[in-house]
C-alpha cells in the first residue's frame, strides 16, 4: 500500500468511528436530520454522517517526511488507504449501533439523553438494521476514498471540485438568507431553491457546483497575474484604493436594505461583537495581555449608558428611579461612558500589571465575574436593579429617527461606531504606540531594555481596550433597551476571545470575519444555537492546535512565517540533493508558528 501503512489506516478508522459516535451522542446528527441542503436526500445530518470517514481518509494520506523529503502517496494508494479507513470508521460505528440495539436503546437513554430509537432509525436510513449498516459501510468506503483522493489527486482538479462542493454546502446552509435577499431584489428563485423542501434544487446545486468550480479553474489559470496587477494598482494608485473602499462602504450601507429586518437584527449583534473583538484585539492581539474578563467593560458600558440616559429599574411592581441617575443625551453620554471605561481599564490594569500572562488571564476572569456578581446582588439593587435589571434605555433617536426600531437603523448606528473603532485600531497598529505594543508582546524584557515603558503601554492597552469594549456595551444597551445581569455572563468574554482568535490575533479583517462566523452564522441558523458553545470550544482548541495564527492572520506575521517556511524547505531540499540523510525533522510542523514568545 505504498507509503501509507495499514496500521495507521486502521487506527484512523477507529478514531473516525469514535468521532461519529460522539457526534450522534452529543445530538448533532439527530438535530440536523431534517435540515435539507440539496433536495430531500442531502440533509445536514447525513452530511455529518459522511464527514468523519471523509476526514480520516484525508488525514491518513498526509504527506510523510522520509529522509528529508515530503512523500505523498499516489492517487491510487491514497484512494485505497482512504477507502479502507473510511470503511473501518463505519464498521466501528456499525458495531456501536448494533451494540446499542442489543442492550436496548431505552436503557442507554437513561445515561445519554440523545440515544433514542429515532437516531438509530436515522443513521440506518430507515431501512432496518442489516441494510442500514451495509449502506453505512458503503458510504464510508466511498467518502473515505474521496477524502484520500482529495489530497493525493491532481491539485488543480481537487481544488476546483472541493470549491464547488463547499459552495453548494454553504449555499444550502444559507438557504433562508439568500432566499430573502433574492426575494427582496425581485429575482425569481425557484430554479435555485425548491419552494417545497426549502433547500437547493438538484439542478440549482449542479449549476452552483459548475460555476464555483469553473471560477476556481479560471482563477488558477490567470489568478497570479491578476492578483499581481491588482496589488500593483493598489500600491501605486491611491484612487484605486479609495475606489475599493467606497465600494465596500456602499455595500455595507445598502446591505440591510437587501436582507430584511431579521437578518439586520443579527447583523446588529455581529457589529456589537466586532466592537468587542476590536477592543479585545487591542489588549490581546496588539499588547499580548490575555484578558478573560472583558465582559466587565461590556457590562460597564451598558449599565453606565443606561444610568446616564435616565433608564429606570425593573421592580416587581413596575419601575422605579435608580439611586443615581442622570438624563443626558445619548451622544453626550456615550463619550462620558467611554472615558469612564478607559479609567476603569486603568483601575483594573494597575494592580495586575506585574502578573505574567496566564495569571493575568485568571485574575481578569475573576474581575469579570465580580462585575456580574455585583450587578446581580441585592446590595447594588437600588443602583442597577439586581437580577431584574433596568429598562427604558434610550433609543438614541435624532429628531424622531429611532435607532432601535427597525433593526436596520440600529445597524447603521453600530456601523458608524465600528468604522470609527476600525479606523482607530488600524492607525494604532501602525503608530509608535502600536510598535511599542508589538515589541512588548514579542518580548517584554527586551522591550523594557530598549526603553519601552511597559507599565505605561500596558495601562494604555487596558484603557483603550476598555473604551472600545464599553462602546460595544453602550450599543448593546441601545439595541435591546433593557438590561439584566444574565446578558453579562463570562461567556461574553469567551465569545469575544473566540472572535479574535478565530480570525487571527492582531488582524482587523480577522476580527470582522470571526464575528461574522461566530455570531452571524448561529444567529442566522437558529438550529445551531444549541451547539454554539460546543462549537466555540472545539474551534478554540482546533485553531490553537492546527493554526494558531488564525484564519485571516495579520499580514506581517504571516509573511514572517512564510519566509521561515521557505527557508526551511530550501534547507531540507539542499540536504536531500546532497544525498545526506536528514535525520532531524524541523520541530514545528509546517504552518505552525508561535509568534508570541510568552
Amino acid at each position: 500500500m505504498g507509503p501509507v501503512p495499514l496500521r495507521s489506516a486502521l487506527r484512523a478508522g477507529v478514531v473516525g468511528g469514535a468521532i461519529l459516535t460522539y457526534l450522534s451522542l452529543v445530538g448533532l446528527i439527530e438535530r440536523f436530520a431534517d435540515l435539507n441542503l440539496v433536495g430531500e436526500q442531502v440533509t445536514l445530518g447525513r452530511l455529518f454522517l459522511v464527514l468523519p470517514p471523509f476526514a480520516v481518509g484525508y488525514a491518513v494520506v498526509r504527506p510523510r517526511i522520509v529522509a528529508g523529503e515530503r512523500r505523498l502517496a499516489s492517487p491510487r494508494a491514497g484512494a485505497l488507504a482512504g477507502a479502507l479507513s473510511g470503511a473501518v470508521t463505519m464498521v466501528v460505528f456499525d458495531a456501536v449501533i448494533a451494540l446499542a440495539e442489543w442492550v436496548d436503546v431505552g436503557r442507554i437513554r437513561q445515561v445519554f439523553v440523545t440515544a433514542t430509537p429515532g437516531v438509530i432509525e436515522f443513521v440506518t436510513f430507515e431501512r432496518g438494521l442489516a441494510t442500514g449498516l451495509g449502506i453505512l459501510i458503503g458510504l464510508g468506503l466511498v467518502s473515505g476514498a474521496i477524502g484520500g483522493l482529495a489530497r493525493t489527486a491532481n491539485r488543480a482538479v481537487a481544488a476546483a471540485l472541493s470549491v464547488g462542493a463547499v459552495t453548494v454546502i454553504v449555499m444550502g446552509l444559507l438557504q433562508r438568507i439568500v432566499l430573502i435577499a433574492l426575494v427582496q431584489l425581485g429575482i425569481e428563485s425557484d430554479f435555485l431553491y425548491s419552494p417545497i423542501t426549502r433547500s437547493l434544487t438538484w439542478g440549482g446545486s449542479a449549476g452552483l457546483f459548475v460555476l464555483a468550480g469553473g471560477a476556481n479553474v479560471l482563477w488558477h489559470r490567470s489568478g497570479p497575474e491578476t492578483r499581481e496587477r491588482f496589488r500593483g494598482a493598489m500600491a501605486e494608485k491611491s484612487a484605486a484604493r479609495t475606489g475599493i473602499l467606497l465600494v465596500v462602504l456602499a455595500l455595507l450601507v445598502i446591505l440591510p436594505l437587501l436582507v430584511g429586518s431579521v437578518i439586520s437584527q443579527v447583523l446588529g449583534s455581529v457589529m456589537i461583537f466586532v466592537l468587542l473583538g476590536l477592543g479585545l484585539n487591542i489588549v490581546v492581539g496588539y499588547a499580548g495581555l490575555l484578558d478573560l474578563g472583558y465582559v466587565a467593560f461590556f457590562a460597564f458600558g451598558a449599565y453606565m449608558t443606561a444610568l446616564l440616559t435616565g433608564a429606570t429599574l425593573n421592580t416587581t411592581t413596575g419601575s422605579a428611579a435608580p439611586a443615581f441617575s442622570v438624563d443626558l443625551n445619548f451622544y453626550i453620554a456615550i463619550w462620558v461612558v467611554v472615558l469612564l471605561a478607559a479609567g476603569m481599564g486603568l483601575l483594573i490594569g494597575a494592580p495586575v500589571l506585574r502578573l505574567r500572562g496566564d495569571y493575568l488571564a485568571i485574575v481578569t476572569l475573576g474581575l469579570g465575574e465580580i462585575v456580574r456578581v455585583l450587578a446581580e446582588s441585592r446590595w447594588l439593587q437600588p443602583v442597577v436593579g439586581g437580577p431584574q435589571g433596568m429598562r427604558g434605555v434610550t433609543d438614541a433617536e435624532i429628531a424622531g429617527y429611532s435607532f432601535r426600531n427597525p433593526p436596520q437603523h440600529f445597524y447603521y448606528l453600530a456601523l458608524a461606531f465600528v468604522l470609527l473603532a476600525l479606523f482607530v485600531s488600524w492607525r494604532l497598529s501602525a503608530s509608535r504606540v502600536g510598535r511599542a505594543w508589538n515589541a512588548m508582546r514579542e518580548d517584554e524584557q527586551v522591550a523594557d531594555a530598549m526603553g519601552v515603558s511597559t507599565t505605561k503601554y500596558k495601562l494604555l492597552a487596558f484603557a483603550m481596550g476598555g473604551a472600545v469594549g464599553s462602546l460595544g456595551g453602550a450599543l448593546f444597551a441601545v439595541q435591546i433597551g433593557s438590561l439584566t445581569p444574565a446578558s453579562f455572563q463570562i461567556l461574553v468574554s469567551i465569545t469575544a476571545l473566540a472572535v479574535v482568535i478565530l480570525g487571527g490575533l492582531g488582524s482587523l479583517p480577522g476580527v470582522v470575519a470571526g464575528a461574522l462566523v461566530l455570531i452571524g452564522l448561529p444567529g442566522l441558523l437558529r438550529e445551531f444555537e444549541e451547539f454554539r458553545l460546543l462549537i466555540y470550544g472545539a474551534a478554540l482548541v482546533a485553531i490553537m492546535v492546527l493554526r494558531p495564527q488564525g484564519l485571516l492572520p495579520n499580514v506581517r506575521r504571516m509573511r514572517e512565517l512564510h519566509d521561515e517556511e521557505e527557508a526551511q524547505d530550501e534547507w531540507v531540499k539542499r540536504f536531500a540533493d546532497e544525498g545526506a540523510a536528514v535525520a532531524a525533522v524541523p520541530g514545528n510542523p509546517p504552518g505552525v508558528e508561535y509568534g508570541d514568545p510568552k
Partner: protein
Amino acid sequence: MGLRPTRSDEDGLGSRNVGTDQQARTVRLSRFERLPWRRIILVVLGASIVATVGIGAFRTLTLPEGQRYSASAWGDFIVLGIAQGSIYALIALGYTLVYGILRMINFAHGEVFMFGAFGSFFFANAYEESGFLERQPYVALAIILGVAIATSVVVAVLLERIAYRPLRGAPRLVPLITAIGASLFLQNTARGFFGSQTRGYAKPNFLEGRWELLGVAFPKIRVIVFIVAFVSVVLLTLFIARTTTGKSMRAVAEDSEIASLMGINVDRVIVLTFAIGGILAGIAAVLFAMTFEAVNFFMGFQPGIAAFTAAVLGGIGSIAGAALGGLMLGLLESLGPSLILTGYQVPSPFQLKPGFTFLVLVLVLVFRPGGILGTGEAEKV
C-alpha cells in the same frame, strides 16, 4: 545627540542601549527609587483593606443581641468552611500538580471533576433504585467512587493527549486558550450527552444526621469529607516523596529536559500527573455530589475556579500549599461574607460569595504572588 536619553526617547521606542541584565536592573531600580508609586499604592491599598475588614468584623461581632450570629452559627460556618475547603484542596492538587510539571493552568480541570460526578451519578442512582445502596452501602460507595475516579482519569488523560500534547513547548498563552476551549467543549459535551437539567444525587442513609462532639454537632457527611480528603492528601504526599515514580515526577518538575536525559520517560510522567489529578478530582466529585446532592453540567466551573484560587493562595506548585490554600479559602468563603459584610449592613451577603473568592485571588496575586507557602522565587509571576 547627547549620551543621556532625551525626554521623548525615554517613554518611546528610543534606543537606550542597556546591555546586561545587571544594568537593566540598576536602571529599573533607580527609576523605582525615584517614584515608588507602586509601593505607595500597595501600602495604601493594603491598609484600607485591613481597616475595612477590621471595622466590618468588629461591627458584626458587636451587633445588638437579636441580630448577632450565635456561637453555634459560627461553629456551623467553620465546619462548612472546612468541609468545602477539603474539596477545594483535592481539586486544587490537580491544578498544582499539572502546573508544577507543565507550567500551564489546566483550565479544564473543573470539567474533569464534573465528568467524575456525572459518571458516578448514574451508578449512585441505579443503586438507589435497586436498593443496593442501602443493603450494601460500603460496597456501593466503593463502586461509585471507583467509577467517578475512572471517568475523571479517562477525561483527564484524553484531554492531555488530544488538546495539550501537541502544544508542548508552545508559548504560554497558547495552551491556556486551548484549555479554555477544552473547558467550554467538555461542558457542552456533558450538556449534549446528559441533558441540561440538574439531577438529584443519591446518598446512603448512614451519611445523614450529625455526630455530637464537645457540644458541637458535626454533620456526618462533612466529617467524612474532611477525613477522606485528608487521607488522600497524605497518601499523595507519601507517593510523591517515597516512590520511584514520585521521584521521577519531581525530577520532571525540576527540569524536564534533564530528566529525559536521565532516562525518565517525560511523556509517561505527564500522563501520570494528569491521571493523578483525575483520581483526586474523581474523589472530590463524589464528596461534592454527596454533600450537595445534585449534579449538573455547569457544576465544574465555580469549584474549578475556587480550587485554582486555592492553589494560588497556597503557592502554586506546592502540594502542602494546595491543601492549606483549599482549607483557607473554604473558611474565608464561609466566614468572610457574614463576618465582614454583615457589619456594613449589606443585604444578603452570601450572594457576594463568588465575588469574594475572586477578590481573594486578586489580592493574593497583588500582594504575595508566590502564595503563602510560595518559594518566593524571583521570577515575576
